[in-house]
Structures are given as structure tokens and as C-alpha cells.
């Protein structure tokens, strides 16, 4: 629920400063949170360049923010120790944008019960509910899924929940710190009149017959067909895995019905990039032959190429048979373009073909690697469950592995390990400022509705272990011996991560597990550049400048609004200060006295005016009556 008052709104592009005090990992996480705003809302962020009001993100004690734009020039938002999680940053920035917690909305008692005697004494004030005059729910239903909702254990004194949802299914839903919920976005987009976002481009699950405006090319030998199943597979689409009868479509290129070398080309509608880099993500199913392939092109339009020029971006070969697979393709397009999917029949027998579904295109960075875990639920029932990912290389050349622990009864842990690799002799050790982001993908068909859960860790080259070694030193020096499944020996360093990556309850919610498959998206990037101090520009008009010469009396607070200094005056239930500088005191009693005395004064004045008028009128007529005979012409005097 949002704070009432237009004065609390920020401009759509919010100026920010990342303070020097911030931990390196927090800096990367904050920028990732900004990316989620850019994808799903019309809110954007820019480094502060002198604007009157801006948000200074710093490492204070804890995680906190003010509510709304306070017009104080530098507005602090703290991302302290252990607050460096994307959803926590999203939460605090939603406060800054003008939102309170979900369970404080005026109608919350219809949806949750606050169990007052389970709350830590003295903390009851944290469960305040606002009135409709103070906050606005923006005509959006109560949202148990909100990233702004307390969890059931908030401020509890024992182990029993302090918040009980009236619909019991939501007990373990409240308090999610994954991502914006659909209703979070609806409210934010209503409050800020959003109609588009910076980085979202297109999403298509092929449920509608218009196939999202995609077109079949005439320069090929076959067409892609919109179908809901193929005899040789897939049996259903990826969007809803066949759970909805009469729906669940995808596009299929039947390689079995064409000759070797024949192609089918499907082109997206025209797209208009803003940022110059894009990530194309889609699911692909191969029921044809391993030699069948999918080529991704872009058709880019420019002044010289009004019909567009075809540019090959990636050839996807060796597509595994018999299951949906997630693919990412990085694009770098600055002009108007189309995405082109070109299916190619390869040599060898085919009974099926290629199928694509759940396409998403956004102007975001693609993850660097994908860890596809099949038959995931079999690991959940294993009390010794633990999984190591295949080895991957970062863009800088560091070799790494992800470790997922499934031994805890309630939650899953995830850890990042450096391992010995082929480039180790050429790399810097201890490994400096590489940020690893591990994200479990919510496989909702639409990227805007996904609530993926991610955690980031950053390699600090100065960090030491108990044994005195540098934590992030070369794995061949500080690691322990390990073996890949094929028997190859290597060295693995200690893992660094979280035992509380995601709870089983949340894992089973959303679409984290779909078709018994789980995807962990991995990005390891150098964030050394975030170590530098952001230049401090001169503010266009700072609060200190304008308020330095503007004194508010009686504890009034000086604020800058629309470039002018104003006073916010204190007030109570039946008293207030007013005036340009809060110099005048008012109260309800004063008002009554003023109103009564004004009425009496007006009555007295009217009475006086009436009496004077009557007196004057009577006097005038008397005078006229006295002088009448002298002025009368006496006619017929003798008659």
C-alpha cells in the first residue's frame, strides 16, 4: 500500500549514489536489483549528476529505507551486512518509492490475523494498520505473495507465528524474498503510471493464434506449425506442460516431412531496441535427429537495408533428443530488427522435428552458464542429497563449480567453489572481485512474471581462512583433491555460499521444478570496476544551500520542493503550527473561539447597521412631514 501524497513520488528515473561504505558484493546486488526494476517497471536508475534529490545507498547498520521521496536532497537507504540480496534491495527501494508493508494496509484484518500475545513485548507498534486516508491499496487485492509482506515469524516471542493467514495455504507463502509479485508490479505500475519498461521486448508462449505477430518466411522450403502435441514428441507444450486441456501450444518444424538440407524460417515481429544488447531465451525440443539444427539469425533494418540484412548469430547443434531444453542467445543489435528461427533438416532418419516454446526477449545480459538438473525430485527424497555442477569457466578464465546441498529437511543450500583449471597459470591469485550469481529459474513462460531466486557472492582477495591461507587463493594450493565422474582428478577450494538458498516450501511453489527439471543460471563476472568511488557532482540546488537561509520556527522542518525551501510544520491531534515559517500556532479551541466571536461580531455589526438605517429613515420622514405645508401649492383654497 502506497503513502498518500503526490509529493512523495520520485521521477521515473531515480538518481542514486553507491556510497564508498558499501561492500563490493552489495554493489553488484544493488545493480542487479535495478535491472529487475528496469525489466518489469518503468522505474529506471541513473548515477546522481547533481539533481536536487537522490538516493544514497550506503552500508549502515541493517537494511532500511524511508517511505517515499522525502525531498531532503540526499536520502539514505541502508544495505548493511547480510542485506546484500536482490529481493531485499527491491524491498527497500519499494519503500523508497512510496510503499509500506503489505500487512499494514487498511483491510489487512480481512486477510490475516495478528496474534498479539505472540509478539515480542514492545514490538506491537510494528503491526500498525493504516487508514484509507493515509495509504492507498491502488485497487489491488490483498497480496500474500508480495515481496513487501512480513513473514509469519516477524517479531515473534516464541516459535508460534505472529501472523496467521485466513487462507491457510498462504502461511508459508507470506514473506517471500524472491522477486516482485504480479500485484507488487501492478501497484507500482499504477502508482507511477507505467505503460512500458526499459528492457522488456517480447514474450511468446504461442497460446494465441496470432503467434505473437511472428511470420513465416517465403525463402524456405517448409513452415513452422502451431501445434499442441507431436506424435514423436513433445507430448505437450512447455508453458503449462499439458495441464490445461484445449490449450498449450508451441511451434513445430517437422524435419521428418522434408528433405535433408530443407529449412523452415520463422521471423519475429519487428523489434525496436533501446540499449543495444539483448538476451534471447527459449525452450527447444528435438524429436527429429541429432543432426537437425536450429540457426538463430537477426534481420537488421537500417537506412541502407530497408528490407533488412540477415546476420547469423548462433548455430544450435547437437540438441539432445526427447526433452525440453533451455537456451540463451546473446544479441547486440542497435537498429530495428527481427529475430529469425531457422530450422534445418540434418542428415539421418527423423520421425519428428524441432519445437520451440516460451520465447523471451529482453535487453538484459544473458547468464553465462546454465546448470540443467534433470529428475530433480529424486534428490529431494535422498537424506544424503548433494549435487555438484559440471565445471564451468568464468569470462576471465577462472574454473568453478556449484555445490547444492539437499540434506537439510527444510531448505536447500548453494555454494560456489573455485576449482583448478586450465588457465590458472595466467590468472591473478588470490582471485580478486569476481561476483558469482547463482539463480534458480522460475520457469514461468513470461519473464515479467518470473520470481526467480538468486544469491550472489564475491571473491574478496584479502579474505583469509582459519588456517591462515587466503580463502580465494589458487585451488591447486589451498584446495582439496576431488574427482569428476569420468575419474579425472582436480583440486577444489572451500565453498562459499548460503545454507538458506531456498526453502522446500518455496521450491515447490511457482515453476522452479517443471517437468521434474530445475535450471540454475550462473554468471561469474569481474566487478573490480565497482570498487572505484562515484564522482560527487555539485547538486543543482541542495537542501543545505536553500535551507541554510530559511529558518523554520517551532520545530518545523525545512524541505526543498520544486526548487523552493518550504517548512513542514508540526501538528498534534487538536493543535498545529502554520505560516511560511511555522510561526503561527493554531488549535481546535482557537478555531471555535474565532468562529463564535466572528459570528457575534457580524451579528452586532448587522444590528448596528440596521438600527442606524432605521433611525436615519425615520428621521428623514419626520423632517419631510414637518416641512410639507410650506411646499404645498394650495389650489381651490376656498372650495
Amino acid at each position, binding site marked *: 500500500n502506497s503513502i498518500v501524497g503526490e509529493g512523495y513520488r520520485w521521477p521515473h528515473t531515480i538518481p542514486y549514489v553507491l556510497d564508498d561504505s558499501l561492500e563490493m558484493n552489495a554493489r553488484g546486488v544493488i545493480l542487479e536489483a535495478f535491472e529487475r526494476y528496469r525489466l518489469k517497471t518503468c522505474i529506471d536508475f541513473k548515477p546522481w549528476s547533481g539533481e536536487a534529490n537522490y538516493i544514497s545507498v550506503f552500508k549502515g547498520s541493517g537494511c532500511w529505507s524511508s517511505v517515499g521521496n522525502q525531498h531532503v536532497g540526499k536520502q539514505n537507504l541502508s544495505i548493511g551486512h547480510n542485506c546484500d540480496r536482490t529481493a531485499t534491495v527491491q524491498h527497500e527501494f519499494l519503500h523508497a518509492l512510496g510503499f509500506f508493508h503489505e500487512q*499494514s494496509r487498511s483491510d489487512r484484518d480481512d486477510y490475516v490475523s495478528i496474534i498479539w500475545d505472540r509478539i515480542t513485548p514492545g514490538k506491537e507498534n510494528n503491526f500498525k494498520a493504516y487508514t484509507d486516508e493515509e495509504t492507498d491499496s491502488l485497487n489491488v487485492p490483498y497480496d500474500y505473495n508480495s515481496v513487501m509482506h512480513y513473514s509469519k515469524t516477524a517479531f515473534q516471542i516464541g516459535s508460534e507465528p505472529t501472523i496467521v493467514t485466513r487462507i491457510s495455504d498462504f502461511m508459508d507463502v507470506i514473506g517471500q524474498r524472491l522477486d516482485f509479485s504480479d500485484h507488487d508490479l501492478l501497484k507500482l505500475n499504477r502508482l507511477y503510471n507505467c505503460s512500458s519498461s526499459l528492457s522488456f521486448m517480447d514474450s511468446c508462449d504461442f497460446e494465441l493464434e496470432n503467434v505473437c505477430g511472428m511470420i513465416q518466411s517465403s525463402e524456405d522450403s517448409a513452415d513452422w506449425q502451431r501445434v499442441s502435441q507431436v506424435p514423436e514428441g513433445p507430448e505437450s507444450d512447455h508453458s503449462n506442460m499439458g495441464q490445461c486441456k484445449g490449450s498449450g501450444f508451441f511451434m513445430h518444424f517437422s524435419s521428418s516431412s522434408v528433405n535433408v538440407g530443407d529449412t523452415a524460417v520463422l521471423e519475429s515481429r519487428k523489434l525496436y531496441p533501446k540499449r543495444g544488447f539483448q538476451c534471447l531465451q527459449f525452450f527447444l525440443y528435438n524429436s527429429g535427429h541429432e543432426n537437425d539444427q536450429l540457426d538463430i539469425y537477426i534481420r537488421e533494418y537500417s537506412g541502407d537495408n530497408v528490407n533488412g540484412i540477415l546476420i547469423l548469430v548462433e548455430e544450435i547443434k547437437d540438441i539432445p533428443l526427447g526433452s525440453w531444453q533451455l537456451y540463451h542467445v546473446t544479441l547486440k543489435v542497435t537498429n530495428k530488427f527481427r529475430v529469425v528461427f531457422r530450422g534445418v533438416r540434418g542428415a539421418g532418419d527423423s520421425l519428428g522435428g524441432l519445437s520451440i516454446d516460451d520465447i523471451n526477449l529482453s535487453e538484459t545480459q544473458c547468464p553465462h552458464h546454465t546448470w540443467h538438473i534433470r529428475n530433480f525430485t529424486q534428490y529431494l527424497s535422498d537424506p544424503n542429497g548433494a549435487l555438484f555442477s559440471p565445471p564451468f569457466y568464468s569470462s576471465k578464465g577462472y574454473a568453478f563449480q556449484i555445490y547444492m546441498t539437499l540434506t537439510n529437511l527444510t531448505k536447500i543450500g548453494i555454494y560456489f567453489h573455485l576449482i583448478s583449471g586450465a588457465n590458472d597459470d595466467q590468472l591473478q591469485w588470490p582471485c580478486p572481485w569476481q561476483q558469482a550469481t547463482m539463480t534458480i529459474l522460475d520457469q514461468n513462460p513470461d519473464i515479467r512474471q518470473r520470481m526467480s531466486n538468486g544469491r550472489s557472492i564475491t571473491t574478496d582477495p584479502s579474505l583469509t581462512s582459519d588456517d591462515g591461507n587466503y580463502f580465494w587463493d589458487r585451488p591447486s594450493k589451498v584446495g582439496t583433491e576431488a574427482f569428476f565422474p569420468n575419474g579425472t582428478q582436480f583440486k577444489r577450494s572451500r565453498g*562459499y555460499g548460503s545454507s538458506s538458498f531456498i526453502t522446500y516450501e518455496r521450491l515447490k511453489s511457482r515453476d522452479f521444478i517443471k517437468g521434474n527439471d530445475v535450471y540454475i543460471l550462473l554468471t561469474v563476472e569481474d566487478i573490480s570496476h565497482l570498487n572505484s568511488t562515484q564522482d560527487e557532482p555539485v547538486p543543482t540546488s541542495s537542501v543545505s544551500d536553500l535551507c541554510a537561509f530559511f529558518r523554520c520556527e517551532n520545530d518545523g522542518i525545512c524541505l526543498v520542493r520544486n526548487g523552493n525551501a518550504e517548512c513542514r510544520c508540526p501538528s498534534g491531534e487538536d493543535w498545529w503550527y502554520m505560516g511560511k515559517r511555522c510561526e503561527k500556532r493554531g488549535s481546535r479551541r482557537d478555531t471555535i473561539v474565532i468562529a463564535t466571536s466572528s459570528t457575534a461580531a457580524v451579528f452586532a455589526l448587522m444590528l448596528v447597521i440596521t438600527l442606524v438605517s432605521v433611525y436615519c429613515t425615520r428621521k428623514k420622514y419626520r423632517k419631510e412631514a414637518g416641512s410639507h405645508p410650506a411646499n404645498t401649492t394650495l389650489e381651490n383654497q376656498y372650495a
Partner: protein
Amino acid sequence: APENFDVDGGLDRDIFDINEDLGLDLFEGDISLDGVQER
């Protein structure tokens, strides 16, 4: 093998828990109020 380093120390703490452990007494757990809102 040495034990992995757990940044969460084995706990699954929400924003309010983190702030409470620090002894912070913020409004609704994580809201900083200005002078007018405090009144």
C-alpha cells in the same frame, strides 16, 4: 574437506530479524521515519 563458508551462519533470517539482531528499533522493522512522520 574443510567445511564450506555459510554467509547466513545456518540461519534463514528475514530483513526484520537482521535489524532486530542489531538492536535497531525501526518503524515496522525497516522504515526510517522523517520528523513529520514520527510525530
